[in-house]
């Protein structure tokens, strides 16, 4: 009997290791032939630890499972949630990037290949590099880190820039609150990222790759390191990738707790062993990146999506989506939510459908007050705006951003003035200090919000001015986007700041 118990961080945080150990111990004591597979998470976090028992080729789900439930699961008397892929939250998804996550043993390369893995890389190794770049452009893939820049165009710049050494750098510094898709794919399907980076290397002529992975993700670090070792042993990495004569190798670099290093130029400085301060652009990293050489810097999800584009074709991927937002987006639903987790779907689903229908509203059962989309630098949306479709341009038009597609839900007990204050405080703590609007502005922002809350209504105009300066004058998104949550909170919830509606506007 095969039993799957996730090794995902969220599952571990909810007791998956203890459950896995209890299953092994119980099986030993009653002499049952049980194979425990530590898979990735299916993304239904409210059911974690989600245990799957394979019977007659069907994987039956149980969850959330505690150690006390183990005997009943083994003897078949426990009540199952049914086949895991029939659970509505899962069945309604379109899984391309996450197709294997939770299905396979993340560190079993044969299992990976049996589920479509490496087919994309083999195709790419036979293709002309310029044709690979064209395929990525045709797929419509855009940077999943938040900026939404077309991946193919970035690759083309690096491809067209001659240099003795080029690099592929994967930005795995997923610091935005409410986002965990990068972590999940690195823990649940690490070979997809490795394969994506190898394809990128072949496309642009880079032979070295780095994954800059945040230190707050110890499980992802361990799984990625193990996967790289396995890939190297199997000839997927090294001087002769899959016998093609093409060289590509990579390593993990661990961050050190600086949020701003998720900004690509700070990340490059950090990798070079410097303070993680932002570099002015130009020069673009695609021309002068890591060590001053042409460098592709892509988010985990962008790179992990590349293999499926090559496995099934650019047109297949581009067929999904809405307008210029093509393909699928792994939405992460978090915070005060009944059914939280990862929901991969074609672009275009309305925000309200995600929050109320898919996620089932709040965990506390109280009305939704606001949802923050796109991490700590994203705007707060109110239920009146729930018809906004999930797409880059659509969210931009609504005064927000989809960022890394994290959706954090808050109920009506939340004090939005305090959330606005937290945004400024976070910016002050994490500012790299390079530019004044961010370094000083964030500190003054906290003080100004405190003044408003203490009854100085006139300070609201000051806060608006300050936010305008930060938006226009900051070098990167940290200072530049912190006004999104602050101003959207002020606009929608002046009462929380002790203001009358007219005063805030």
């Amino acid at each position, binding site marked *: 009997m095969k039993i799957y118990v996730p090794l995902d*961080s*969220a599952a*571990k*945080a*909810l007791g998956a290791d203890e459950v896995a150990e209890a299953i092994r111990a119980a099986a030993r004591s009653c002499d049952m032939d049980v194979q425990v597979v530590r898979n990735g998470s299916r993304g239904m*976090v*409210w059911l*974690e630890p989600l245990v799957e028992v394979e019977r007659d080729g069907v994987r039956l789900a149980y969850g959330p499972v505690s150690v006390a439930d183990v005997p009943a699961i083994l003897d078949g008397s426990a009540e199952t949630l049914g086949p895991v892929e029939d659970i509505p939250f899962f069945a309604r998804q379109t899984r391309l990037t996450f197709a294997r996550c939770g299905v396979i043993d993340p560190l079993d390369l044969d299992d990976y290949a049996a589920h479509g893995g490496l087919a994309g890389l083999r195709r790419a190794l036979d293709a002309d590099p310029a044709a690979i770049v064209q395929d990525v452009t045709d797929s419509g893939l855009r940077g999943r880190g938040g900026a939404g820049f077309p991946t193919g165009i970035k690759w083309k710049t690096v491809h067209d820039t001659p240099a003795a050494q080029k690099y592929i750098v994967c930005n795995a510094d*997923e*610091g*935005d*609150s*409410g*986002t*965990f898709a*990068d*972590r999940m794919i690195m823990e649940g399907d690490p070979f997809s990222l490795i394969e994506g980076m190898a394809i990128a290397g072949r496309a642009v002529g880079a032979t*070295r790759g780095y994954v800059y992975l945040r*230190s*707050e*993700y*110890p*499980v992802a670090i361990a799984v990625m390191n193990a996967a790289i070792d396995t890939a190297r042993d199997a000839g997927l990495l090294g001087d002769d990738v899959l016998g093609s004569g093409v060289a590509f190798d990579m*390593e993990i*670099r*661990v*961050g*050190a*707790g*600086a*949020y701003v290093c998720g900004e690509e130029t700070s990340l490059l400085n950090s*990798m*070079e*062993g*410097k*303070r*993680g301060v932002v570099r002015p652009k130009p020069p673009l990293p695609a021309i002068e990146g*890591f*060590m001053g050489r042409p460098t592709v810097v892509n988010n985990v999800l962008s790179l992990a999506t590349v293999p499926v584009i090559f496995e099934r074709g650019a047109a297949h991927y581009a067929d999904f989506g809405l307008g210029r937002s093509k393909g699928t987006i792994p939405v*992460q*639903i*978090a*915070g*005060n*939510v009944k059914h*939280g987790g990862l929901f991969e779907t074609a672009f275009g689903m309305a925000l309200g459908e995600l929050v109320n229908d898919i996620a089932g509203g709040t*965990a506390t059962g109280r009305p939704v007050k606001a949802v*923050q989309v796109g991490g*700590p630098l994203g705007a707060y949306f109110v239920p009146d705006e729930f018809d906004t479709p999930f797409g880059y341009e659509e969210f931009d038009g609504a005064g927000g951003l989809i960022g890394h597609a*994290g959706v*954090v839900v*808050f*109920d009506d007990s*939340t004090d939005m003035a*305090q*959330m606005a204050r*937290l945004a400024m405080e*976070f910016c002050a703590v*994490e500012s*790299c200090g390079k530019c004044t609007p961010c370094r000083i502005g964030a500190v003054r922002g906290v003080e100004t919000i405190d003044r408003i809350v203490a009854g100085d209504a006139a300070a609201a105009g000051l806060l608006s001015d300050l936010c305008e300066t930060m938006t226009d004058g900051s070098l990167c998104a940290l200072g530049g986007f912190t006004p999104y949550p602050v101003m959207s909170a002020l606009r929608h919830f002046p009462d929380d700041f002790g203001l009358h509606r007219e005063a805030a506007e």
Partner: protein
Amino acid sequence: MRQHLPQPSAGDIQPLIDRHLAQEGPLLPILHSVQDAFGHVPEAAVPMIAEALNITAAEVHGVLSFYHDFRDVPAGHHVVKICRAEACQAMGGAALADAALARAGVAWHGTSANGAVTIEPVYCLGLCACGPAAMVDDRLVGRMDAAQIDAILTEAGA
């Protein structure tokens, strides 16, 4: 149980530096290795790293002080990192953190008087759909409630 270990010697530190010299951009990997070994980056390591990388001690200090992870003095016996980010706040993380700080008698980054526990803020552990979340040394905790954080601190000796 604050650790009063003797300062590591140059002979202890040098191999941790040398191991990374072939890497491109070796400074962060070196600092991580040194901190993993000693629980902090001792003052004696700074000039040695500067020498090995042909940079100034001020540059090493600049990097060391930029990143939240690196410490120049040892932490308490256990480190409890409590998430302060938005998703955990949506689930009552702020009240939980306040209770934990009060229970240990410290402010953020503080170490309890007996040296048992250091409590630090962390901005996101990627456990946003099962908050409030914390990390106790290397162990992750999700859906944390008041009783659980109390038990964690008791176990840690705060």
